[in-house]
C-alpha cells in the first residue's frame, strides 16, 4: 500500500492558544483510519487544517504525492477530499437529487438542468450503496441515516480519494450503522481512504485498520487495531495508566445506591401527539430515572412534555404535587432544567460568549434594580468554569469556538446555575469524548448525591444501565416496562426492548 496523505508536525494556534502542536497523521490508500482523542484534543482542528478551513501555522501536508496548500473547502473537494460533517450540511427541503448533484448538475444547452439525467445519475450512485429511495422526494423526509448516506454518496460521486467522517454513527440506530459500515467497506474495496472520527471505540475495532490517538494537540500514538485493546486506546486518550482505569470502572456512574425520597415528578398516561401516546413515570428525590428505548421511541418527546414545551393532549403531569408547568419559563421557575439533545439547534447561541450562554436561564433571577448584576454574573460564571473544568480562553470567548465537550459543559452549567431540583438530560454525553464524558457523568452523580433528581436519556446502554436507579422503557411512544437497579444489565435492557418490539409487531 502507498501513502495517500501525510500530515507532519502541524502547528496551529488561536489567539496565541495552541490547538495543535506537532500533530501528525498518515493514511494509506484504501485504508480506514480512525482518529480519536478527547474533546479539545485537536481532532476537529486537524480536519479543518486538512480541508483548508483553517490555515496551518507550520508543518507539512502531502496529499496524493503533492504538497498540499488548500485554502478553502471547495479546493479540498476538487483535490479529492470530501468531508461528512457531524452536523449534516445538506438542504433538507430540496430533493435527494438536488442534494447529491448540487453544484455539479448535468446541463442541457449549457444552462438548463437536465432533470431526467440528474435523477438517473443520482439513482445509480445511491444503488451502488444499496440505498433504494425516491430521489425526487425532499431529503428531509428521510431518516437521519439515509441523509447521512446521501451525503457520503455525494462525496464519493465527486471522485473523492479521501472521505472524512466526523462522528458518522452518533445519530444512527444499529441497523443503520450496519448499512453505513457496508458503505465504508465498499469504499475501502474501491481504494478510497476513510478518515473515521468516532467516540464509539467498539466501532473502530469493527471497521478500521489503524488508529491515531491525539491528546492536547499532539499525536500520541498510531497503532493497528488488530494489535491493540479498547483499554489501551482509552489510556492513550486520557494519558493514564491502564490499570488505573480498570479499577475505576468504565463510567463514573454507580446506579442503584439512592435511597428513595418523596415523589417530585409524576407523569400519568401522558400523550402529546403521535410520537408520545402513553407515558408514565415517577421520579423521587435523589434518584436518576433513565428513559430507555430505540431511536424514535418517544424519549425526547417525553422530556419535552415534562418541561412544558409540548402541550399535553391527554394525561397529567404533577410537579411536587402541583400541576406541571405549561411553558419552559414556568418550568424553570418551578425548579426544572432541560439539557436538550440537539446542542447546535436548541442549545448554544453561537455568537454569544461563554458567559452570556451560561447565564441565559438564570437571567430573570440575576437582576438588581432592572439591570443585570454583572459582578454576580461574572462570579457565578467563573465558579462553574472552575468547578466543571471548562476549557476556554476566558469567559468572553464566543461559545462556537469551544470544542463540543466544553460547549456541553457550558450548557450543563447553564442549568446547574439555576439550582434546579430536577434536571432532564437528553443525551448529555453525545458527541463528547471519553474524558469529558466521565467528567459529565461525575457532575451528574454529584448533583444527585446532593439530593436532587435526574431524568436521563441516553442511547448508550452502558451509561443508562450503570447510571440510572430505574429505567423506564419506551417503545413507539408507549411505556412498556420498568427495570430497577441493582440488577439491570445491558442484556436485560436489550431483552426488554426486543420483547416489546416483538409484542408490538
Amino acid at each position, binding site marked *: 500500500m502507498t501513502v495517500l496523505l501525510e500530515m507532519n508536525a502541524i502547528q496551529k494556534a488561536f489567539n496565541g492558544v495552541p490547538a495543535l502542536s506537532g500533530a501528525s497523521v498518515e493514511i494509506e490508500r484504501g485504508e480506514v483510519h480512525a482518529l480519536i482523542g478527547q474533546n479539545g484534543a485537536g481532532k476537529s482542528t486537524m480536519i479543518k487544517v486538512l480541508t483548508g478551513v483553517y490555515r496551518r501555522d507550520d508543518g507539512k501536508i502531502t496529499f496524493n504525492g503533492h504538497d498540499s496548500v488548500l485554502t478553502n473547502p471547495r479546493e479540498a473537494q476538487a483535490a479529492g477530499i470530501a468531508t461528512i460533517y457531524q452536523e449534516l450540511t445538506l438542504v433538507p427541503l430540496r430533493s435527494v437529487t438536488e442534494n447529491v448533484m448540487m453544484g455539479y448538475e448535468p446541463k442541457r444547452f449549457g444552462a438548463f438542468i437536465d432533470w431526467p439525467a440528474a435523477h438517473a445519475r443520482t439513482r445509480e450512485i445511491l444503488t451502488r450503496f444499496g440505498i433504494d429511495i425516491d430521489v425526487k422526494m425532499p431529503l428531509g423526509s428521510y431518516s437521519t441515516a439515509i441523509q447521512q448516506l446521501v451525503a457520503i454518496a455525494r462525496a464519493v460521486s465527486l471522485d473523492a480519494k479521501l472521505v472524512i467522517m466526523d462522528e458518522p454513527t452518533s445519530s444512527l440506530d444499529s441497523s443503520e450503522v450496519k448499512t453505513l459500515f457496508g458503505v465504508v467497506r465498499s469504499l475501502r474495496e474501491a481504494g478510497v481512504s476513510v478518515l473515521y472520527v468516532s467516540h464509539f471505540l467498539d466501532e473502530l475495532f469493527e471497521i478500521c485498520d489503524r488508529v491515531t490517538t491525539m491528546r492536547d494537540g499532539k499525536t500520541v500514538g498510531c497503532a493497528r487495531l488488530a494489535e491493540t485493546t479498547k483499554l489501551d486506546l482509552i489510556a492513550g486518550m486520557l494519558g493514564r495508566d491502564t490499570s488505573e482505569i480498570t479499577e475505576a470502572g468504565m463510567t463514573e456512574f454507580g446506579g442503584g445506591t439512592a435511597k428513595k425520597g418523596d415523589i417530585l415528578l409524576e407523569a400519568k398516561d401522558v400523550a402529546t401527539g403521535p410520537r408520545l401516546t402513553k407515558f408514565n413515570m415517577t421520579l423521587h428525590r435523589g434518584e436518576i430515572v433513565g428513559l430507555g428505548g430505540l431511536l424514535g421511541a418517544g424519549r425526547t418527546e417525553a422530556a419535552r412534555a415534562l*418541561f412544558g*414545551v409540548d402541550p399535553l393532549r391527554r394525561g397529567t403531569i404533577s410537579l411536587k404535587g402541583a400541576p406541571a408547568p405549561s411553558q*419552559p*419559563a414556568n*418550568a*424553570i*421557575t418551578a425548579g426544572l432544567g*432541560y439539557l*436538550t439533545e440537539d446542542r447546535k*439547534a*436548541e*442549545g*448554544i*447561541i*453561537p*455568537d*454569544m460568549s461563554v458567559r*452570556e450562554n451560561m447565564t*441565559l*436561564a438564570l*437571567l*430573570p433571577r*440575576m*437582576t438588581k434594580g*432592572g*439591570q*443585570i448584576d*454583572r459582578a454576580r454574573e461574572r462570579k457565578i460564571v467563573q465558579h462553574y468554569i472552575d468547578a466543571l473544568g471548562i476549557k476556554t480562553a476566558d469567559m468572553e470567548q464566543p461559545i462556537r469556538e469551544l470544542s463540543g465537550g466544553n460547549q456541553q459543559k457550558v450548557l450543563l452549567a*447553564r442549568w446547574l446555575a439555576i439550582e434546579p431540583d430536577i434536571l432532564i438530560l437528553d443525551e448529555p454525553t453525545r458527541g463528547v469524548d471519553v474524558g469529558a464524558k466521565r467528567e459529565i457523568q461525575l457532575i451528574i452523580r454529584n448533583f444527585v448525591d446532593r439530593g436532587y433528581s435526574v431524568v436521563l436519556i441516553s442511547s448508550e446502554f452502558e451509561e443508562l444501565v450503570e447510571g440510572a436507579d430505574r429505567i423506564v422503557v419506551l417503545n413507539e411512544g408507549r411505556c412498556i416496562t420498568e427495570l430497577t437497579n441493582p440488577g439491570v444489565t445491558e442484556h436485560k435492557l436489550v431483552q426488554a426492548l426486543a420483547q416489546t418490539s416483538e409484542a408490538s409487531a
Partner: protein
Amino acid sequence: MSTTITETRRKSVRQLVHGHGGIVALLAILLFNMAFTPNFLQLQTLFVNISQVATIAIVAMGMTLVIATGGIDLSVGAIMALAGALAPLIFLSEFGAANPALGVTLAIALPMLVAIACGLFNGIMVAKLNVQPIIATLILFISGRGIAQVLTNGNLQTFTNPHFSYLGTGKVLGLPFQGWLAIGIAIFLYFIISRTTFGRYVLAIGGNERAAQLSGGPVALVKIGVYMICGALAGLAGLIVVAINSASDAARNGSLMELDAIAAAVVGGALLQGGRAPIFGAILGAVIIQLVKYTLLANGVQDEVALIAKAGIILVAVYVQQARKE
C-alpha cells in the same frame, strides 16, 4: 525581512478597514467634502446635516433592535406619516387652539401612542401569529400612509406653532435639539441592550430563538417589545420632520425611510439574521448615508443618481460584513 513587514502592515490595514469600516468610510467622505464641496466647513452645513441625520438615526436605532431579533420593519416610513399627520390635526383643532399648552402636549403624546400601537400590531403579527416580519410589516407599510392621507384629505397641512416646532428647529448649546435627542436615545438604548435582561434576550433571540425559548426567555414579549420601540421611534421621527418643515405632507413624510433605516443599520454593523445590535453603529450608518446624500446634492448630482450611490454603500457594507465573518 522586508516582506514580513509589508505583510504585517497590509494585515493591520485590512484589520483596520474590517474592524472600523464605517469610520474609515466616514473619514473618506469628510475629506472628499473638505476638498471638493463648496462651503462645507461652515456651521450652517453642520446644522443642516444634524437636523437631517437625526430622524434617520432615530428610526435606524429602532430598526437595529428589530433586526437584532432577526426581524425587519418595513412600516416605519408609514408610521412617520401617520404620526406626522395626526399632530397638526390635534393642535390646529378648536380644542387645541383653545388650550395651546395641552394642545401641543396631546399633539405629541397621542401620535406617539398611535405609533406605539402600530408597533404592537406588528409585534403581535410576528410574535403571536407567526407571520413573516417582512409580510407582517408590509400591512402597515401599505395602509399606514393611506390612513394618514385619508385623515388629512390628502392636503398639505401648514401651521405656525413655535412650541411644537421646537422639536425640529430648537437649539440646545447651539446645536439642533433633535441631535441631542438622538444621542440621548442612543445612550438609553445602549444601556438597555448591554445591561438589562431585555437587551440580553433581544440578542439571544436573534442568535438562536429556540435556545432562548427553551432557556425560559419570554420570546414573544421581547419581540413585541422591539416592534413597539421601533414604532415609537418612527413616530417621534415623523413628528420631528413635521416640526422641521412647519408642515405635514402625508404623501412624502417618511417616504423611503424604511430603506434608509435598514441601510443605516446594516452599514452600522447589524446582521440581518440577528444577534447583534450596534446602536452607535446605527448612528454612524445614518451619518454616512446622510453625508453621501448631502455630498451628491451639494455637488449637483441628481436625486435619482444619489439612490444608486446609496445602494453602493449598502453593497460595500454587506461585503465588509461577509469578510468579517470569514
